[in-house]
């Protein structure tokens, strides 16, 4: 270990912290802004030397459960996902509160307020509160590192999984980090209580009571660790409760970062009740700054709508979206001087599919093949191909959650919209499209599923796809008739041929799968992938 500071992304700081604290296994499914955590492990020499398990999982639920299995076996482990990934992993996450852990377990949930790259801006702290599990919410890179390092110990001490909640801004910002000493990995060690992980009602009832009894202890521990801090000041006309990154935006607005009012910085949950009571009793008014949903604010303001509690609910801050120094300045009654407005010549520049992308050729063929049936019947999914919603394609009518294209197409077909089409990517298909396809096969639903296979998880930056080389076998195994599994290469010169194939399958009164297959242009330099493609004979 050297004392030199490392320049790391927030994501990378968490990865390094966990690695230094003796992690044995890292599990994840890609999702902005969490992806770089696993990528850091995969690129790390240290992780290789320490033989840390670090391959992508098929989805967030499998990742979470695998991590729980490693924890069962006594080793330290971490799982990372974007906020909506936690919806997928929620069954495992919520129940892990009742099983508890054996080896330390950290769940990193990376939220995306303002939806820079997401379908919604849900706040993962809700899940933790709902599950009665502890959360660390770092405000800077050093805290991110330290919380991962100490979070594993905290997890073992309380016998519970620990959430580290970050948001896009910290995940994708770089700053210096100082490391702590490398700890050894845990030995293999079974849980002391052999039924700890058996959630039969009789056992779960007992363990739930234990979970409830740990709440006050965790709250106290939070005060002792120093992440929740009360900064006193003379002017008690207002007091500020600042959660997570909101604390930075607050102090940014004052010279030498000295706020003239009492400030309670909250970076660890359960909510530090005694400190909240202290600031509430000492100050005339409370301003609550939260990066995300008004969770504390709702708790404190409550149904009685206490008027001297201000924040996102009364318009002191916007109800939605990411915070920034200017919004917090306004909330504090400080002037916020902006530069010149954006000139009207500036037009928006939305993201688009890359030049030469196979999805483009697939959409061009699909649009032509569908022309006779009329619009409004294409259910799509989440990936680069979602950009087919924009002109000139205007090719899709839905994008909801991973896997929903196939099941929504089935539901619409059940309602009489025939043929209904699903457009899904290879990685999304193995993430959560397969089970829906089984439903469709079992009902012989008249849907055409286009699995646009580019050999990668493209939208998140080209990670491995669990589907590589397996799609036809999976579909056939689920019961799609082999003659209705059609594979072709989406290129301009084969446009007419593609249109013909798609038309044939649209006309079929049952489940068809069409697979336009061509490598993502962004992955052409990936030697590893090139080798695998060759090995599997996919070109």
């Amino acid at each position, binding site marked *: 270990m050297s004392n030199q500071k490392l320049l790391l992304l927030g994501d990378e700081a968490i990865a390094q912290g966990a690695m230094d604290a003796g992690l044995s296994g890292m599990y994840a499914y890609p999702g902005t802004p969490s992806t770089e955590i696993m990528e850091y492990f995969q690129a790390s020499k240290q992780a290789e030397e320490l033989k840390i398990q670090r391959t992508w999982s098929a989805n967030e639920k499998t990742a979470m459960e695998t991590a729980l299995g490693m924890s069962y076996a006594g080793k330290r482990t971490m799982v990372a996902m974007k906020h909506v990934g936690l919806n997928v992993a929620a069954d495992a996450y919520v129940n892990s509160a009742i099983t508890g852990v054996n080896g330390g377990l950290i769940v990193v949930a990376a939220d995306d307020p303002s939806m820079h790259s997401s379908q919604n801006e849900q706040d993962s702290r809700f899940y933790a509160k709902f599950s009665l599990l502890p959360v660390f919410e770092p405000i800077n890179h050093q805290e991110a590192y330290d919380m991962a390092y100490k979070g594993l110990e905290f997890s073992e001490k309380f016998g519970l999984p620990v959430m580290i909640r970050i948001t896009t801004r910290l995940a994708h910002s770089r700053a210096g980090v100082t490391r702590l000493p490398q700890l050894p990995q845990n030995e293999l060690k079974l849980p002391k209580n052999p039924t700890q992980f058996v959630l039969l009602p009789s056992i779960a009832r007992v363990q739930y009571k234990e979970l409830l009894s740990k709440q006050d202890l965790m709250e106290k521990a939070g005060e002792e660790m120093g992440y929740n801090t009360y900064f006193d000041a003379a002017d008690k006309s207002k007091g500020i409760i600042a959660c997570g990154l909101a604390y930075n935006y607050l102090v940014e607005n004052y010279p030498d970062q000295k706020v003239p009012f009492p400030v309670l910085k909250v970076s660890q949950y359960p909510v530090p009740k005694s400190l909240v009571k202290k600031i509430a009793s000492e100050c005339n008014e409370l301003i609550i700054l939260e990066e995300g949903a008004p969770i504390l604010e709702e708790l404190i303001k409550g149904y009685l709508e206490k008027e001297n509690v201000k924040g996102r609910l009364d318009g002191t801050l916007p109800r939605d979206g990411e915070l920034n120094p200017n919004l917090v300045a306004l909330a504090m009654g400080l002037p916020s001087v902006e530069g010149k407005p954006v000139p009207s010549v*500036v037009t928006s520049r939305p993201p688009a599919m890359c030049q030469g992308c196979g999805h483009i050729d697939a959409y061009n063929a699909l649009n032509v093949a569908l022309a006779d049936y009329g619009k409004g019947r294409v259910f799509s999914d989440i990936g680069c191909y979602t950009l087919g919603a924009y002109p000139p394609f205007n090719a899709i009518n839905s994008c909801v959650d991973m896997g929903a294209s196939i099941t929504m197409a089935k539901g619409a077909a059940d309602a009489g919209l025939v043929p209904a089409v699903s457009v899904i990517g290879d990685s999304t298909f193995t993430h959560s499209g397969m089970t829906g396809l089984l439903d469709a096969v079992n009902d012989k639903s008249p849907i055409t599923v286009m699995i646009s296979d580019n050999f990668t998880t493209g939208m998140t930056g080209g990670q491995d796809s669990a589907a590589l080389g397996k799609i036809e076998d999976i579909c056939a195994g689920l019961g799609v008739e082999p003659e209705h599994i059609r594979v072709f290469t989406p290129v301009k010169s084969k446009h007419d041929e593609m249109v013909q194939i798609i038309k044939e399958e649209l006309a079929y009164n049952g489940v068809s799968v069409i697979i336009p297959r061509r490598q993502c242009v962004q992955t052409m330099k990936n030697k590893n992938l090139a080798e695998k493609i060759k090995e599997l004979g996919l070109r």
Partner: protein
Amino acid sequence: MKTDIILAGVGGQGILSIAASLGMAALANDLQIKQAEVHGMSQRGGAVQSHMRISDKEIASDLIAKGGADLILSVEPMESLRYLPYLHETGWLVTNITPFVNINNYPEIDAVMTEIKKIRNHIAINADAIAEEIGSKRSSNIVMLGAASPFIDIPFEKFEIGIRQIFGRKGEEVVKANLAALRAGREFSQKNR
């Protein structure tokens, strides 16, 4: 000292490589940095920005406040204008003038240039042409970094150290080409400010 910089461009144009060189230069000068990047969806040809904060004191916010930027450094002319609300009255706008057209409603370039010229402190530079002139087409981003360097409170040698650290692995030729690009950009700004 404190310099707050908005880096602007289009996903795929490589503003993160400028940010990395700048970060190295700042670290070589024992300064603190925070640099917020854009990853994810916008990297697919959308508008991208990075907030780069350099200071000799501890930095709180990862984001620069609107009205607080000392410099907008843009590798694309229209993108330079998108972040004007961030620019301080006395700040500088340094932009490449070669448009990156990947949308069909890209405005008339003359209209874009007119707006750029309205900014009191601006440097409009043809970084692509300069990079080509010095025989290093791919270094236009480093030309831009050079053009911005007079407005950043870091000694020029530290920028050179940053370049050496970033490109060192790619061999001496690449280092030399990028150092030349850095100097050419700086010279342009010094003549035209």
